[in-house]
């Protein structure tokens, strides 16, 4: 499928048929985190199945741009209407002719990592300078207070090259690890710990050279670039073995591969279908092992009470909250479910100057809960959400694999 076909799919196809299943029960409305905090967004039912009936090309309801694509509506809909997918498609069509430069830039996550890593201290410092951020806001429309990643001096590839290979022999077979761009450049520690946990369990872990999944471009309606990226990534992941399970510690990117590229952009390609069915979120994988009585539970106790927040794009994979179940197995750990639908950032949504306030309001109950339960530390599976929660609550926010790593005595 080429770029034009993706957009044509968004104009005409499949998910639109599901709107006839809508019975106007309003369940989606009650789950929408955006319309809860602003009247600027008329809500998933109005913008979705209702406005969709009048759409001939472009949507008639431009408040559509305020949808953050968190997917809570689709997840909650008991009638199977693909509300979030409809809205993402309609937005891509609406923005096609006047895509802001900003949206083209902030979606280039790999580029950002490549540019920042060699000059990490400088980049980090620059992002802390108010006047710099003010100029960026004025010129590009990225809000001056929006959370930014913290660049690392070492990439995951750098670490893999330099580290000592695990001494023990793999007894459980081989896995492929997908770290995502954030896990490659910014949240490197999450990738390291994930690999070490898998090796501790007895797996050999292969980490092929890999690019971006294209999620940020997809959610900004840049379907052409996103389609190219996701298929390139599928090729890269497939080079390491055709039947191996792929493990990811990047909650949202996993969703792009499992269903979003196919359902939102209509990418109908055997390579994507293959990777999408082989990939597992790392906590999902650990829980599957546990359900099969194959997960060692010789966890060392950790005395800790902290909030766990399941990202919207992890929940939208329809598997519940595997991390909550895994964390229950560690003695002493009391993970308090955040209860929040979304942290507000929704990928790049909360970076934009016209949406920053909304994103902060969406995240506020979550930030408050973190401050109340444990202001030092909280847990969350997706990188951009961690940046948002760190910024909003002041707590360190880590991937739940950190606790598993520690409980196995690896840190």
């Amino acid at each position, binding site marked *: 499928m080429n770029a034009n076909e993706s957009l044509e799919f968004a104009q005409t196809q499949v998910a639109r048929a599901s709107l006839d299943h809508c019975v106007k*029960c309003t369940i989606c409305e009650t789950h929408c985190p955006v319309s809860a905090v602003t009247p600027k967004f008329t809500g998933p039912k109005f913008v979705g199945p209702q406005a969709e009936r009048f759409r001939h090309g472009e949507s008639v309801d431009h408040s559509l741009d305020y949808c953050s694509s968190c997917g809570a509506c689709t997840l909650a809909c*008991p009638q*199977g209407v693909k509300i979030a997918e409809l809205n993402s498609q309609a937005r891509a069509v609406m923005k096609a002719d006047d895509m802001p430069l900003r949206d083209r830039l902030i979606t280039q996550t790999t580029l950002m990592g490549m540019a920042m890593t060699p000059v990490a201290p400088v980049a980090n410092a620059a992002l802390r300078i108010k006047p710099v951020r003010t100029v960026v806001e004025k010129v590009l429309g990225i809000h001056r207070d929006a959370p930014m990643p913290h660049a690392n001096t070492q990439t995951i590839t750098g670490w893999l090259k330099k580290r000592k290979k695990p001494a023990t022999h793999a007894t459980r077979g081989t896995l492929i690890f997908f770290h995502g761009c954030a896990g490659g450049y910014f949240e490197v520690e999450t990738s390291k710990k994930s690999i070490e946990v898998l090796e501790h369990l007895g797996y050999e872990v292969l980490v092929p050279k890999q690019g971006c999944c294209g999620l940020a471009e997809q959610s900004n309606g840049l379907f052409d670039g996103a389609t190219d990226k996701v298929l390139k990534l599928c090729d890269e992941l497939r080079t390491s073995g055709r039947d191996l399970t792929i493990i990811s510690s990047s909650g949202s990117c996993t969703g792009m591969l499992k269903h979003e590229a196919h359902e939102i952009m209509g990418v109908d390609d055997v390579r994507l279908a293959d990777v999408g*069915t082989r990939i597992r979120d790392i906590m999902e994988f650990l829980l*599957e092992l546990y359900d099969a009585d194959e997960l060692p539970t010789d966890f060392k106790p950790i005395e800790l009470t902290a909030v766990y927040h399941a990202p919207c794009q992890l929940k939208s*994979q329809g598997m519940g909250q595997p991390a909550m179940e895994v964390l*229950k197995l560690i003695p002493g750990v009391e993970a308090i479910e955040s209860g929040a639908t979304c942290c507000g950032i929704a990928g790049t949504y909360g970076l934009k100057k016209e949406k920053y306030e909304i994103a902060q309001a969406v995240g506020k109950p979550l930030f408050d809960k973190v401050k109340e339960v444990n202001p030092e530390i909280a847990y969350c599976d997706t990188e951009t959400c961690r940046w948002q929660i760190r910024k909003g609550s002041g707590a360190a926010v880590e991937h739940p694999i950190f606790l598993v790593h520690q409980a196995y005595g690896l840190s």
Partner: protein
Amino acid sequence: MTRVVVIGAGVAGLVASIRLADAGARVALLNKGTGGLQLSQGTIDILGYAPERVERPLEALAGFAQAHPGHPYASLDAECVGTAAGYLKDLLGPALLVGDPAVNLQLPTAVGAIRPTALVSPSMTAGACVDGADFVIVGLRQLKDFYPELVAQNLARTEPPGGGRITARSVMLDFPARDGEIDSSGLTYARALDDPAYRRRFALAVKGVVGDAGTVGLPAVLGLDDHGAWADIAELIGAEVFEIPLPPPSVPGMRLNRALTERAKSAGVRVVPGSKVTGFHASGGSVRSVSLATAGGAREFVAEAFLLATGGFESGALHADSYHKVHESVFDLPLRIPEGTLVHGDYWGDPQPLFTIGVDTDENLLVRHPGGEPVHNNLYAAGGILAGATRWQEKSGEGIAVASAVRAADAILSVAATATSQGAAS
């Protein structure tokens, strides 16, 4: 520890999951979307019409069951229903549910009809339609789902069930839920009213328009998470206050749904929302696992017992094709289907036979071939999927759901306990 998969997160699925998990079972609650409880009025119906209006539902149950031999209440008797209703009351606590399952309250609806129901939110009891009731019904200009004139005029011209007369008048208040919004949902008001400062301004504005006479009827938007908001408002107004449920989004329904879902999670239930069960594996007379169609492919959920709590036609649990052939959508179970025409043309007349279609069970809610042997030895059913009831007309939905959920859960636990003791003995 026995593993149980519950399919469907309406009131039946939630109550069964909690009861099972509290007793030590490892429960996975699978649902393809939010359950119907949140669309409900936040009340628990047991029996409202049999077909005449019912005032004492538990007393009426035996006679009703005799007249309807295939009805779920033929097996779930008054004692079972009363106990189950009490169990639900305890789960939710007096801030969310009060009343006596033996006595129906008669409450005003959003069109000013009088509806019988058994357990209610404490915020609704002052609306009981009895002789001499004196109501002032307050509408909100920005809330388009509630017309106070309609409610007041209908109540004033209707003789309450116990005889006598109700006095009712209406006022409309111009009070936005949030700035710049001229059309707000009840939920937007409820969220605003969780904030004590907004609540105070709201209550004083209501006080300003109602004067000092009568009991104040308001749309059921008085707080979502703060279950004491309505009482606070009543105190600020200085009058008795009651909530009248609205069409969805139903705030009282959301309160119950949220509370039970939270309760299930804290009991250890693994809740998996947003995916559909699309298949199952059975062998040796038992269901071994169900397949859940998550993003990225099917995942198997293995268990010792399965509870089907998927609802009826409204949720897609039952599906009629264009030939009126009806299917059960998860296990393709045999259904109890009445003889003759399923849908007749007199839509305001007798109940439609179609709605009595459902699965047949034994007294422990084990699904069986209609009148015959169990289909699988570990597949149970509860709630709207059960055959024999016209729930919306009888106003029997929640009563059947809660009673069948409790009995099915207890049956599953008792089988597990027997298996454990046999395992220990051998």
